[in-house]
Protein backbone atom coordinates (compact mmCIF):
# COMPACT_ATOMS: atom_id res chain seq x y z
CA UNK A 1 0.00 0.00 0.00
CA UNK A 2 2.93 2.32 -0.44
CA UNK A 3 1.51 3.64 -3.67
CA UNK A 4 0.10 7.08 -3.23
CA UNK A 5 -3.56 7.42 -4.07
CA UNK A 6 -4.68 7.86 -7.61
CA UNK A 7 -1.32 7.52 -9.29
CA UNK A 8 -2.02 5.67 -12.47
CA UNK A 9 -0.43 2.42 -13.46
CA UNK A 10 0.87 1.33 -16.81
CA UNK A 11 -2.20 2.45 -18.68
CA UNK A 12 -1.82 6.05 -17.69
CA UNK A 13 1.91 5.92 -18.39
CA UNK A 14 1.06 5.41 -22.00
CA UNK A 15 -1.34 8.29 -22.04
CA UNK A 16 1.25 10.47 -20.36
CA UNK A 17 3.42 10.15 -23.38
CA UNK A 18 0.68 11.24 -25.66
CA UNK A 19 -0.98 14.02 -23.73
CA UNK A 20 1.26 15.27 -20.97
CA UNK A 21 -0.44 18.53 -20.02
CA UNK A 22 -3.95 17.43 -19.03
CA UNK A 23 -2.54 14.45 -17.29
CA UNK A 24 -0.34 16.52 -15.03
CA UNK A 25 -3.42 18.45 -14.13
CA UNK A 26 -5.18 15.19 -13.48
CA UNK A 27 -2.29 14.12 -11.30
CA UNK A 28 -2.39 17.29 -9.28
CA UNK A 29 -6.08 16.86 -8.80
CA UNK A 30 -5.69 13.25 -7.84
CA UNK A 31 -2.85 14.10 -5.47
CA UNK A 32 -5.32 16.37 -3.82
CA UNK A 33 -8.18 13.92 -3.99
CA UNK A 34 -8.42 13.19 -0.25
CA UNK A 35 -8.47 16.90 0.40
CA UNK A 36 -11.22 17.43 -2.13
CA UNK A 37 -13.25 14.79 -0.39
CA UNK A 38 -12.60 16.50 2.92
CA UNK A 39 -13.38 19.99 1.69
CA UNK A 40 -16.97 20.09 3.02
CA UNK A 41 -15.68 19.50 6.51
CA UNK A 42 -12.83 21.97 6.13
CA UNK A 43 -15.10 24.73 4.82
CA UNK A 44 -18.04 24.30 7.16
CA UNK A 45 -15.89 23.63 10.21
CA UNK A 46 -13.80 26.62 9.23
CA UNK A 47 -16.87 28.83 9.23
CA UNK A 48 -18.84 27.46 12.17
CA UNK A 49 -16.32 25.56 14.25
CA UNK A 50 -13.11 27.49 14.57
CA UNK A 51 -14.45 30.76 15.91
CA UNK A 52 -16.39 29.18 18.81
CA UNK A 53 -13.20 27.41 19.77
CA UNK A 54 -11.21 30.61 20.10
CA UNK A 55 -14.17 32.33 21.68
CA UNK A 56 -14.35 29.72 24.42
CA UNK A 57 -10.63 29.74 25.07
CA UNK A 58 -10.71 33.52 25.32
CA UNK A 59 -13.81 33.45 27.49
CA UNK A 60 -12.31 31.10 30.02
CA UNK A 61 -9.92 33.86 31.09
CA UNK A 62 -12.64 36.49 31.37
CA UNK A 63 -15.17 37.49 33.96
CA UNK A 64 -18.41 37.86 32.05
CA UNK A 65 -22.04 38.21 32.93
CA UNK A 66 -23.60 37.66 29.49
CA UNK A 67 -26.56 39.93 30.15
CA UNK A 68 -24.14 42.85 30.22
CA UNK A 69 -23.13 42.38 26.58
CA UNK A 70 -19.85 41.45 24.91
CA UNK A 71 -18.17 44.68 26.02
CA UNK A 72 -18.46 43.73 29.68
CA UNK A 73 -15.80 41.02 29.59
CA UNK A 74 -12.94 41.54 31.98
CA UNK A 75 -9.66 39.70 31.90
CA UNK A 76 -9.12 37.90 35.20
CA UNK A 77 -6.29 35.53 34.35
CA UNK A 78 -6.66 31.98 35.58
CA UNK A 79 -9.21 32.85 38.28
CA UNK A 80 -11.95 30.89 36.56
CA UNK A 81 -9.83 27.77 36.50
CA UNK A 82 -8.90 28.21 40.14
CA UNK A 83 -12.57 28.69 41.04
CA UNK A 84 -13.56 25.65 39.04
CA UNK A 85 -10.85 23.41 40.43
CA UNK A 86 -11.69 24.34 44.02
CA UNK A 87 -15.40 23.82 43.54
CA UNK A 88 -16.58 20.64 45.24
CA UNK A 89 -19.68 20.52 43.04
CA UNK A 90 -17.48 20.15 39.97
CA UNK A 91 -15.93 16.96 41.28
CA UNK A 92 -19.22 15.72 42.63
CA UNK A 93 -21.09 16.23 39.38
CA UNK A 94 -18.23 14.72 37.39
CA UNK A 95 -18.26 11.69 39.62
CA UNK A 96 -22.05 11.43 39.27
CA UNK A 97 -21.70 11.55 35.51
CA UNK A 98 -19.05 8.88 35.49
CA UNK A 99 -21.10 6.59 37.72
CA UNK A 100 -24.24 7.00 35.64
CA UNK A 101 -22.19 6.53 32.46
CA UNK A 102 -20.78 3.23 33.71
CA UNK A 103 -24.10 2.02 35.11
CA UNK A 104 -25.87 2.65 31.83
CA UNK A 105 -23.07 2.39 29.27
CA UNK A 106 -21.53 -0.99 30.08
CA UNK A 107 -24.83 -2.92 30.03
CA UNK A 108 -25.83 -1.07 26.86
CA UNK A 109 -23.09 -2.73 24.86
CA UNK A 110 -23.19 -6.03 26.69
CA UNK A 111 -26.83 -6.30 25.67
CA UNK A 112 -26.75 -4.60 22.29
CA UNK A 113 -24.11 -6.77 20.60
CA UNK A 114 -25.68 -10.18 21.30
CA UNK A 115 -29.14 -8.77 20.71
CA UNK A 116 -28.15 -7.43 17.31
CA UNK A 117 -26.62 -10.82 16.51
CA UNK A 118 -29.72 -12.72 17.56
CA UNK A 119 -31.98 -10.32 15.66
CA UNK A 120 -30.02 -10.80 12.45
CA UNK A 121 -30.32 -14.58 12.93
CA UNK A 122 -34.07 -14.28 13.39
CA UNK A 123 -34.53 -13.25 9.82
CA UNK A 124 -35.40 -10.09 8.02
CA UNK A 125 -38.96 -9.51 9.13
CA UNK A 126 -38.47 -10.24 12.83
CA UNK A 127 -35.33 -8.15 12.85
CA UNK A 128 -37.13 -5.23 11.34
CA UNK A 129 -39.99 -5.37 13.84
CA UNK A 130 -37.79 -5.78 16.88
CA UNK A 131 -35.28 -3.11 15.88
CA UNK A 132 -38.12 -0.71 15.18
CA UNK A 133 -39.54 -1.37 18.62
CA UNK A 134 -36.17 -0.99 20.33
CA UNK A 135 -35.44 2.18 18.44
CA UNK A 136 -38.66 3.86 19.56
CA UNK A 137 -37.27 5.28 22.82
CA UNK A 138 -34.52 7.00 20.87
CA UNK A 139 -37.02 8.90 18.76
CA UNK A 140 -39.77 9.34 21.34
CA UNK A 141 -39.66 12.90 22.55
CA UNK A 142 -37.79 13.37 25.79
CA UNK A 143 -40.89 15.07 27.12
CA UNK A 144 -43.09 12.01 26.84
CA UNK A 145 -40.40 9.57 27.97
CA UNK A 146 -39.33 11.57 31.00
CA UNK A 147 -42.86 12.32 32.00
CA UNK A 148 -43.79 8.68 31.92
CA UNK A 149 -40.70 7.58 33.82
CA UNK A 150 -41.10 10.42 36.27
CA UNK A 151 -44.58 9.17 37.09
CA UNK A 152 -43.55 5.51 37.17
CA UNK A 153 -40.87 6.39 39.71
CA UNK A 154 -43.31 8.06 42.13
CA UNK A 155 -44.19 6.64 45.53
CA UNK A 156 -47.33 4.99 44.16
CA UNK A 157 -45.82 4.43 40.72
CA UNK A 158 -45.43 1.16 38.91
CA UNK A 159 -41.93 0.35 40.19
CA UNK A 160 -43.00 0.46 43.81
CA UNK A 161 -46.21 -1.38 43.03
CA UNK A 162 -44.31 -4.23 41.44
CA UNK A 163 -42.06 -4.49 44.47
CA UNK A 164 -45.12 -4.49 46.72
CA UNK A 165 -46.46 -7.34 44.62
CA UNK A 166 -43.31 -9.39 45.15
CA UNK A 167 -43.27 -8.38 48.79
CA UNK A 168 -46.81 -9.70 49.29
CA UNK A 169 -46.44 -12.86 47.22
CA UNK A 170 -45.49 -15.67 49.53
CA UNK A 171 -42.96 -17.23 47.14
CA UNK A 172 -40.85 -14.13 46.78
CA UNK A 173 -41.66 -12.56 50.14
CA UNK A 174 -38.45 -13.70 51.88
CA UNK A 175 -36.41 -11.86 49.27
CA UNK A 176 -38.30 -8.65 49.85
CA UNK A 177 -38.37 -8.37 53.61
CA UNK A 178 -36.18 -5.28 53.34
CA UNK A 179 -39.00 -3.45 51.65
CA UNK A 180 -41.58 -1.68 53.75
CA UNK A 181 -44.61 -0.62 51.69
CA UNK A 182 -45.17 2.26 54.13
CA UNK A 183 -41.87 3.68 52.99
CA UNK A 184 -41.89 3.33 49.23
CA UNK A 185 -38.56 3.75 47.50
CA UNK A 186 -38.13 7.37 46.51
CA UNK A 187 -36.68 6.57 43.10
CA UNK A 188 -36.27 10.15 41.99
CA UNK A 189 -36.15 11.89 45.36
CA UNK A 190 -33.53 9.98 47.30
CA UNK A 191 -29.88 10.58 46.56
CA UNK A 192 -29.13 6.94 47.27
CA UNK A 193 -31.05 5.58 44.26
CA UNK A 194 -31.26 8.47 41.80
CA UNK A 195 -28.21 7.34 39.83
CA UNK A 196 -29.75 3.94 39.20
CA UNK A 197 -33.03 5.54 38.21
CA UNK A 198 -31.31 7.80 35.69
CA UNK A 199 -29.06 5.02 34.40
CA UNK A 200 -32.05 2.78 33.76
CA UNK A 201 -33.68 5.41 31.57
CA UNK A 202 -30.45 6.06 29.68
CA UNK A 203 -29.89 2.33 29.16
CA UNK A 204 -33.44 1.86 27.96
CA UNK A 205 -33.28 4.86 25.66
CA UNK A 206 -29.99 4.16 23.88
CA UNK A 207 -29.97 0.37 23.73
CA UNK A 208 -31.96 0.44 20.49
CA UNK A 209 -29.57 2.99 19.04
CA UNK A 210 -26.65 0.67 19.68
CA UNK A 211 -28.53 -2.28 18.30
CA UNK A 212 -29.03 -0.32 15.09
CA UNK A 213 -25.31 0.50 14.92
CA UNK A 214 -24.39 -3.13 15.44
CA UNK A 215 -27.02 -4.33 12.97
CA UNK A 216 -25.42 -2.13 10.34
CA UNK A 217 -22.12 -3.68 11.35
CA UNK A 218 -23.51 -7.20 11.09
CA UNK A 219 -24.54 -6.36 7.55
CA UNK A 220 -20.88 -6.19 6.60
CA UNK A 221 -20.38 -9.82 7.54
CA UNK A 222 -21.08 -12.12 4.68
CA UNK A 223 -23.39 -15.08 5.12
CA UNK A 224 -20.78 -17.28 3.47
CA UNK A 225 -18.57 -16.94 6.52
CA UNK A 226 -21.32 -18.21 8.79
CA UNK A 227 -22.16 -21.00 6.38
CA UNK A 228 -18.55 -22.08 6.21
CA UNK A 229 -18.31 -22.11 9.99
CA UNK A 230 -21.53 -24.09 10.22
CA UNK A 231 -20.05 -26.73 7.95
CA UNK A 232 -17.00 -26.82 10.21
CA UNK A 233 -19.39 -27.62 13.06
CA UNK A 234 -19.43 -24.31 14.90
CA UNK A 235 -22.59 -23.70 16.92
CA UNK A 236 -24.46 -20.38 17.21
CA UNK A 237 -22.44 -19.25 20.19
CA UNK A 238 -19.13 -20.10 18.53
CA UNK A 239 -20.14 -18.37 15.34
CA UNK A 240 -20.93 -15.31 17.44
CA UNK A 241 -17.63 -15.21 19.31
CA UNK A 242 -15.39 -16.35 16.52
CA UNK A 243 -16.84 -14.62 13.48
CA UNK A 244 -19.22 -11.83 14.43
CA UNK A 245 -17.32 -10.35 17.37
CA UNK A 246 -13.93 -9.95 15.69
CA UNK A 247 -15.43 -8.51 12.54
CA UNK A 248 -17.56 -6.11 14.57
CA UNK A 249 -14.54 -4.53 16.22
CA UNK A 250 -14.65 -1.27 14.22
CA UNK A 251 -18.29 -0.89 15.18
CA UNK A 252 -17.76 -1.75 18.81
CA UNK A 253 -15.02 0.81 18.78
CA UNK A 254 -17.31 3.40 17.25
CA UNK A 255 -20.21 2.55 19.56
CA UNK A 256 -18.15 2.70 22.73
CA UNK A 257 -16.52 5.97 21.71
CA UNK A 258 -19.98 7.42 21.12
CA UNK A 259 -21.17 6.16 24.51
CA UNK A 260 -18.20 7.69 26.30
CA UNK A 261 -18.68 11.05 24.64
CA UNK A 262 -22.47 10.96 24.77
CA UNK A 263 -22.60 10.03 28.41
CA UNK A 264 -20.21 12.76 29.40
CA UNK A 265 -22.70 15.16 27.83
CA UNK A 266 -25.72 13.58 29.52
CA UNK A 267 -28.25 16.30 30.24
CA UNK A 268 -31.96 15.74 29.60
CA UNK A 269 -32.64 12.57 31.53
CA UNK A 270 -31.01 13.74 34.73
CA UNK A 271 -32.57 17.17 34.40
CA UNK A 272 -36.11 15.88 34.18
CA UNK A 273 -35.82 13.07 36.70
CA UNK A 274 -34.39 15.39 39.35
CA UNK A 275 -37.39 17.63 38.74
CA UNK A 276 -35.32 20.32 37.02
CA UNK A 277 -32.49 19.80 39.54
CA UNK A 278 -34.64 20.45 42.59
CA UNK A 279 -34.59 17.03 44.23
CA UNK A 280 -31.81 14.48 44.69
CA UNK A 281 -29.46 16.87 42.94
CA UNK A 282 -26.49 15.89 45.06
CA UNK A 283 -26.14 12.55 43.33
CA UNK A 284 -28.31 13.21 40.30
CA UNK A 285 -26.71 16.33 38.83
CA UNK A 286 -24.43 15.60 35.88
CA UNK A 287 -21.52 17.75 34.82
CA UNK A 288 -23.52 19.00 31.84
CA UNK A 289 -26.39 20.02 34.09
CA UNK A 290 -23.95 21.86 36.29
CA UNK A 291 -22.24 23.51 33.36
CA UNK A 292 -25.52 24.64 31.87
CA UNK A 293 -26.63 26.07 35.18
CA UNK A 294 -23.44 28.06 35.69
CA UNK A 295 -23.53 29.44 32.17
CA UNK A 296 -27.18 30.26 31.67
CA UNK A 297 -28.81 30.50 35.09
CA UNK A 298 -25.97 31.76 37.25
CA UNK A 299 -24.71 33.74 34.26
CA UNK A 300 -21.04 33.15 35.00
CA UNK A 301 -19.95 32.41 31.45
CA UNK A 302 -16.23 32.70 32.14
CA UNK A 303 -16.31 30.05 34.80
CA UNK A 304 -18.51 27.89 32.60
CA UNK A 305 -15.95 28.16 29.80
CA UNK A 306 -13.19 27.09 32.18
CA UNK A 307 -15.27 24.11 33.28
CA UNK A 308 -15.94 23.24 29.64
CA UNK A 309 -12.23 22.98 29.01
CA UNK A 310 -11.69 20.95 32.14
CA UNK A 311 -14.47 18.62 31.04
CA UNK A 312 -13.01 18.53 27.55
CA UNK A 313 -9.68 17.51 29.05
CA UNK A 314 -11.27 14.74 31.07
CA UNK A 315 -13.16 13.31 28.09
CA UNK A 316 -10.09 13.61 25.92
CA UNK A 317 -7.98 11.74 28.47
CA UNK A 318 -10.54 8.96 28.75
CA UNK A 319 -10.82 8.72 24.99
CA UNK A 320 -7.05 8.82 24.57
CA UNK A 321 -6.58 5.97 27.02
CA UNK A 322 -9.30 4.07 25.25
CA UNK A 323 -7.76 4.75 21.84
CA UNK A 324 -4.35 3.76 23.13
CA UNK A 325 -5.67 0.47 24.43
CA UNK A 326 -8.03 -0.45 21.63
CA UNK A 327 -7.37 1.97 18.79
CA UNK A 328 -5.08 -0.27 16.78
CA UNK A 329 -7.77 -2.89 16.38
CA UNK A 330 -10.70 -0.54 16.48
CA UNK A 331 -9.46 1.83 13.83
CA UNK A 332 -7.81 -0.92 11.80
CA UNK A 333 -5.04 1.21 10.41
CA UNK A 334 -3.13 -0.52 7.63
Amino acid sequence: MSRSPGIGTQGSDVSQLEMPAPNRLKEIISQGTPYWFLSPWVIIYGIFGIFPLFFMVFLSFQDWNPSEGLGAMQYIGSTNYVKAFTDPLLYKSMWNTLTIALLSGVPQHLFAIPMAYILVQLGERARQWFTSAYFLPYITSTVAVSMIFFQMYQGNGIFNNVIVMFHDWSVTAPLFTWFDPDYPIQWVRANSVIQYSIALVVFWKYLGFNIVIYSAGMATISNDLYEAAKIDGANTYQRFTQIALPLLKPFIFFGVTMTIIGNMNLFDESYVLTNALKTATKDGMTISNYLFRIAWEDQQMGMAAAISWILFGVIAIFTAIYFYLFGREGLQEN
Partner: protein
Amino acid sequence: MNIFDNALFQKSIYAFLKYGVLAFLILFAMTTIFPFVYSIVLSTHDQEGISSLGVSMGLGIDLVENYNELLQRTAFWTGITNSAIIAILGTVISIFFCSMCGYSLAVYKFKGRNVIFGIMLLSMMIPPVLSLIPYFLIVDMLGLMNTHFAVWVPFTIAPMGIFLVRQYVVASIPKDLLEAAKLDGAGEFRIYSTIVMPLLKPSLATLAIIQFVFLWNNFLQPLVILEGDKAVIITMIRSMQGTPDAPMGAIILGSFLSMLPLILVFVVSSKQMISGLTSGAVK
Protein backbone atom coordinates in the same frame (compact mmCIF):
# COMPACT_ATOMS: atom_id res chain seq x y z
CA MET B 1 -23.94 -41.29 33.29
CA ASN B 2 -23.19 -37.63 33.27
CA ILE B 3 -26.35 -35.66 32.86
CA PHE B 4 -24.52 -33.02 30.84
CA ASP B 5 -23.83 -35.52 28.10
CA ASN B 6 -27.47 -36.41 27.86
CA ALA B 7 -28.76 -35.35 24.48
CA LEU B 8 -32.24 -34.68 25.80
CA PHE B 9 -30.83 -32.51 28.53
CA GLN B 10 -28.77 -30.52 26.07
CA LYS B 11 -31.73 -30.16 23.83
CA SER B 12 -33.97 -28.91 26.59
CA ILE B 13 -31.31 -26.49 27.78
CA TYR B 14 -31.07 -25.24 24.24
CA ALA B 15 -34.84 -24.89 23.97
CA PHE B 16 -34.95 -23.17 27.32
CA LEU B 17 -32.28 -20.71 26.22
CA LYS B 18 -33.97 -20.15 22.90
CA TYR B 19 -37.37 -19.41 24.34
CA GLY B 20 -35.86 -17.52 27.23
CA VAL B 21 -34.05 -15.24 24.81
CA LEU B 22 -37.15 -14.84 22.72
CA ALA B 23 -39.21 -14.03 25.79
CA PHE B 24 -36.66 -11.45 26.80
CA LEU B 25 -36.68 -9.87 23.35
CA ILE B 26 -40.45 -9.60 23.40
CA LEU B 27 -40.60 -8.32 26.97
CA PHE B 28 -38.06 -5.67 26.24
CA ALA B 29 -39.92 -4.68 23.10
CA MET B 30 -43.00 -4.22 25.25
CA THR B 31 -41.21 -1.81 27.53
CA THR B 32 -39.99 0.23 24.60
CA ILE B 33 -43.37 0.34 22.89
CA PHE B 34 -45.20 1.15 26.09
CA PRO B 35 -44.45 4.90 26.28
CA PHE B 36 -45.44 5.18 22.66
CA VAL B 37 -48.79 3.51 23.22
CA TYR B 38 -49.19 5.31 26.51
CA SER B 39 -48.81 8.68 24.80
CA ILE B 40 -51.72 7.72 22.56
CA VAL B 41 -53.74 7.04 25.68
CA LEU B 42 -52.61 10.25 27.35
CA SER B 43 -53.41 12.34 24.31
CA THR B 44 -57.07 11.40 24.65
CA HIS B 45 -57.30 12.86 28.15
CA ASP B 46 -57.51 16.38 29.48
CA GLN B 47 -55.29 17.81 32.17
CA GLU B 48 -57.35 16.39 35.02
CA GLY B 49 -57.58 13.00 33.40
CA ILE B 50 -53.82 12.82 32.89
CA SER B 51 -52.99 13.81 36.42
CA SER B 52 -55.25 11.11 37.85
CA LEU B 53 -54.69 8.38 35.28
CA GLY B 54 -51.73 6.66 36.89
CA VAL B 55 -50.71 3.73 34.73
CA SER B 56 -54.17 2.65 33.66
CA MET B 57 -54.70 2.45 29.91
CA GLY B 58 -58.25 3.76 29.70
CA LEU B 59 -58.93 5.99 26.73
CA GLY B 60 -60.36 9.43 27.35
CA ILE B 61 -62.72 11.52 25.27
CA ASP B 62 -60.67 14.65 24.77
CA LEU B 63 -58.68 13.81 21.67
CA VAL B 64 -60.46 16.32 19.44
CA GLU B 65 -60.33 18.97 22.12
CA ASN B 66 -56.59 18.40 22.56
CA TYR B 67 -56.08 18.65 18.83
CA ASN B 68 -58.00 21.90 18.67
CA GLU B 69 -56.02 23.27 21.58
CA LEU B 70 -52.81 22.23 19.85
CA LEU B 71 -53.81 24.05 16.68
CA GLN B 72 -54.94 27.07 18.61
CA ARG B 73 -51.78 27.42 20.66
CA THR B 74 -49.22 26.55 17.99
CA ALA B 75 -48.89 26.78 14.23
CA PHE B 76 -48.54 23.02 14.38
CA TRP B 77 -48.43 22.10 10.71
CA THR B 78 -46.17 25.03 9.86
CA GLY B 79 -43.82 23.76 12.53
CA ILE B 80 -43.94 20.24 11.13
CA THR B 81 -43.21 21.56 7.64
CA ASN B 82 -40.28 23.65 8.85
CA SER B 83 -38.86 20.76 10.82
CA ALA B 84 -39.23 18.53 7.79
CA ILE B 85 -37.41 20.99 5.53
CA ILE B 86 -34.54 21.31 7.98
CA ALA B 87 -34.30 17.60 8.71
CA ILE B 88 -34.57 16.45 5.10
CA LEU B 89 -32.10 18.96 3.66
CA GLY B 90 -29.69 18.47 6.54
CA THR B 91 -29.88 14.69 6.33
CA VAL B 92 -29.47 14.41 2.58
CA ILE B 93 -26.55 16.82 2.44
CA SER B 94 -24.89 15.25 5.43
CA ILE B 95 -25.08 11.82 3.83
CA PHE B 96 -22.96 13.20 1.00
CA PHE B 97 -20.60 15.23 3.14
CA CYS B 98 -20.07 12.64 5.85
CA SER B 99 -19.57 9.81 3.39
CA MET B 100 -17.08 11.86 1.37
CA CYS B 101 -15.07 12.79 4.45
CA GLY B 102 -15.31 9.35 6.03
CA TYR B 103 -14.30 7.66 2.81
CA SER B 104 -11.36 9.98 2.42
CA LEU B 105 -10.14 9.27 5.93
CA ALA B 106 -10.53 5.54 5.49
CA VAL B 107 -8.89 4.86 2.13
CA TYR B 108 -6.31 7.57 1.49
CA LYS B 109 -3.03 8.18 3.17
CA PHE B 110 -2.15 11.82 3.12
CA LYS B 111 -0.44 14.50 5.06
CA GLY B 112 -2.53 15.73 7.93
CA ARG B 113 -4.94 12.84 7.91
CA ASN B 114 -4.43 11.95 11.54
CA VAL B 115 -4.49 15.60 12.52
CA ILE B 116 -7.83 16.15 10.79
CA PHE B 117 -9.30 12.98 12.22
CA GLY B 118 -8.03 14.00 15.64
CA ILE B 119 -9.60 17.44 15.39
CA MET B 120 -12.89 15.87 14.39
CA LEU B 121 -12.88 13.56 17.37
CA LEU B 122 -11.83 16.32 19.74
CA SER B 123 -14.49 18.64 18.42
CA MET B 124 -17.09 16.13 19.55
CA MET B 125 -15.82 16.39 23.10
CA ILE B 126 -16.26 20.10 23.55
CA PRO B 127 -19.41 20.62 25.60
CA PRO B 128 -21.94 22.32 23.30
CA VAL B 129 -23.38 24.45 26.09
CA LEU B 130 -21.25 27.51 25.47
CA SER B 131 -20.84 27.42 21.71
CA LEU B 132 -24.35 28.80 21.34
CA ILE B 133 -23.17 32.41 21.74
CA PRO B 134 -20.36 32.31 19.13
CA TYR B 135 -22.65 30.34 16.82
CA PHE B 136 -25.26 33.07 17.12
CA LEU B 137 -22.64 35.73 16.40
CA ILE B 138 -21.52 33.94 13.23
CA VAL B 139 -25.06 33.44 11.97
CA ASP B 140 -25.80 37.10 12.67
CA MET B 141 -22.62 38.19 10.89
CA LEU B 142 -23.41 36.07 7.83
CA GLY B 143 -26.88 37.59 7.70
CA LEU B 144 -28.51 34.21 8.17
CA MET B 145 -30.81 35.09 11.06
CA ASN B 146 -34.21 33.46 10.81
CA THR B 147 -33.16 31.16 7.96
CA HIS B 148 -33.43 27.39 7.98
CA PHE B 149 -30.05 27.20 6.29
CA ALA B 150 -28.28 28.37 9.46
CA VAL B 151 -29.90 25.62 11.47
CA TRP B 152 -28.94 22.60 9.39
CA VAL B 153 -25.70 23.49 7.60
CA PRO B 154 -23.36 23.33 10.60
CA PHE B 155 -24.54 19.79 11.34
CA THR B 156 -23.97 18.36 7.87
CA ILE B 157 -20.40 17.56 8.80
CA ALA B 158 -21.26 15.77 12.03
CA PRO B 159 -18.00 14.16 13.17
CA MET B 160 -19.99 11.24 14.48
CA GLY B 161 -21.29 10.53 10.99
CA ILE B 162 -17.85 10.87 9.44
CA PHE B 163 -16.46 8.50 12.06
CA LEU B 164 -19.26 6.00 11.41
CA VAL B 165 -18.68 5.99 7.66
CA ARG B 166 -14.96 5.71 8.15
CA GLN B 167 -15.41 2.65 10.33
CA TYR B 168 -17.82 1.12 7.87
CA VAL B 169 -15.52 1.63 4.92
CA VAL B 170 -12.64 0.12 6.85
CA ALA B 171 -14.77 -2.90 7.72
CA SER B 172 -16.53 -3.53 4.46
CA ILE B 173 -14.86 -2.04 1.39
CA PRO B 174 -12.03 -4.24 0.17
CA LYS B 175 -9.02 -2.35 -1.09
CA ASP B 176 -8.72 -4.74 -4.02
CA LEU B 177 -12.04 -3.54 -5.30
CA LEU B 178 -10.83 0.08 -5.36
CA GLU B 179 -7.56 -0.94 -6.96
CA ALA B 180 -9.39 -2.87 -9.64
CA ALA B 181 -11.60 0.10 -10.37
CA LYS B 182 -8.56 2.30 -10.68
CA LEU B 183 -7.00 -0.17 -13.10
CA ASP B 184 -10.12 0.13 -15.17
CA GLY B 185 -9.39 3.82 -15.36
CA ALA B 186 -12.27 5.07 -13.23
CA GLY B 187 -11.77 8.56 -11.74
CA GLU B 188 -11.56 9.02 -8.01
CA PHE B 189 -14.90 10.71 -7.67
CA ARG B 190 -16.50 8.15 -9.93
CA ILE B 191 -15.17 5.32 -7.80
CA TYR B 192 -16.62 6.98 -4.74
CA SER B 193 -20.00 7.79 -6.26
CA THR B 194 -20.69 4.68 -8.31
CA ILE B 195 -18.82 1.94 -6.49
CA VAL B 196 -18.40 2.97 -2.88
CA MET B 197 -21.63 4.84 -2.17
CA PRO B 198 -23.92 1.91 -3.05
CA LEU B 199 -21.85 -0.40 -0.88
CA LEU B 200 -22.14 2.02 2.00
CA LYS B 201 -25.93 1.84 2.01
CA PRO B 202 -26.34 0.23 5.44
CA SER B 203 -24.12 2.76 7.14
CA LEU B 204 -25.64 5.67 5.24
CA ALA B 205 -29.09 4.47 6.27
CA THR B 206 -27.91 4.40 9.88
CA LEU B 207 -26.41 7.83 9.47
CA ALA B 208 -29.64 9.10 7.93
CA ILE B 209 -31.66 7.99 10.94
CA ILE B 210 -29.23 9.51 13.41
CA GLN B 211 -29.06 12.81 11.55
CA PHE B 212 -32.77 13.03 10.93
CA VAL B 213 -33.62 12.38 14.56
CA PHE B 214 -30.99 14.83 15.71
CA LEU B 215 -32.07 17.62 13.37
CA TRP B 216 -35.72 17.02 14.14
CA ASN B 217 -35.25 17.12 17.90
CA ASN B 218 -32.56 19.80 17.99
CA PHE B 219 -33.79 22.59 20.21
CA LEU B 220 -31.26 25.26 21.14
CA GLN B 221 -30.16 26.48 17.71
CA PRO B 222 -33.68 26.81 16.27
CA LEU B 223 -34.78 28.47 19.51
CA VAL B 224 -32.37 31.37 19.14
CA ILE B 225 -32.32 31.63 15.34
CA LEU B 226 -35.86 30.97 14.15
CA GLU B 227 -39.12 32.63 15.02
CA GLY B 228 -42.57 33.28 13.65
CA ASP B 229 -43.43 31.21 10.59
CA LYS B 230 -39.90 29.79 10.44
CA ALA B 231 -40.04 28.13 13.85
CA VAL B 232 -39.74 24.38 14.21
CA ILE B 233 -42.16 22.02 15.88
CA ILE B 234 -40.04 21.18 18.90
CA THR B 235 -39.77 24.79 20.08
CA MET B 236 -43.49 25.17 19.51
CA ILE B 237 -44.31 22.19 21.68
CA ARG B 238 -41.84 23.26 24.32
CA SER B 239 -43.40 26.70 24.41
CA MET B 240 -46.58 25.18 25.80
CA GLN B 241 -44.72 23.45 28.60
CA GLY B 242 -43.42 24.65 31.89
CA THR B 243 -46.50 26.24 33.38
CA PRO B 244 -48.45 24.27 35.96
CA ASP B 245 -51.56 24.54 33.83
CA ALA B 246 -49.73 23.50 30.68
CA PRO B 247 -52.18 21.66 28.43
CA MET B 248 -50.54 18.26 28.87
CA GLY B 249 -53.04 16.53 26.61
CA ALA B 250 -52.25 18.84 23.71
CA ILE B 251 -48.51 18.68 24.44
CA ILE B 252 -48.45 14.91 24.41
CA LEU B 253 -50.63 14.74 21.32
CA GLY B 254 -48.28 17.20 19.65
CA SER B 255 -45.16 15.26 20.55
CA PHE B 256 -46.81 12.03 19.50
CA LEU B 257 -47.79 13.42 16.10
CA SER B 258 -44.37 14.95 15.60
CA MET B 259 -42.82 11.54 16.24
CA LEU B 260 -44.59 9.89 13.34
CA PRO B 261 -42.29 11.26 10.61
CA LEU B 262 -39.34 9.92 12.57
CA ILE B 263 -40.87 6.48 12.66
CA LEU B 264 -41.51 6.65 8.93
CA VAL B 265 -37.89 7.61 8.28
CA PHE B 266 -36.73 4.83 10.52
CA VAL B 267 -38.81 2.16 8.84
CA VAL B 268 -37.68 3.25 5.38
CA SER B 269 -34.00 3.48 6.21
CA SER B 270 -34.01 0.40 8.38
CA LYS B 271 -34.93 -1.58 5.24
CA GLN B 272 -31.78 -0.24 3.59
CA MET B 273 -29.72 -0.95 6.62
CA ILE B 274 -29.56 -4.65 6.19
CA SER B 275 -29.62 -4.63 2.40
CA GLY B 276 -25.91 -5.36 2.39
CA LEU B 277 -26.67 -8.67 4.01
CA THR B 278 -29.36 -9.83 1.66
CA SER B 279 -27.78 -8.60 -1.54
CA GLY B 280 -24.66 -10.53 -0.70
CA ALA B 281 -21.93 -8.67 1.08
CA VAL B 282 -18.58 -8.07 -0.49
CA LYS B 283 -16.24 -9.20 2.18
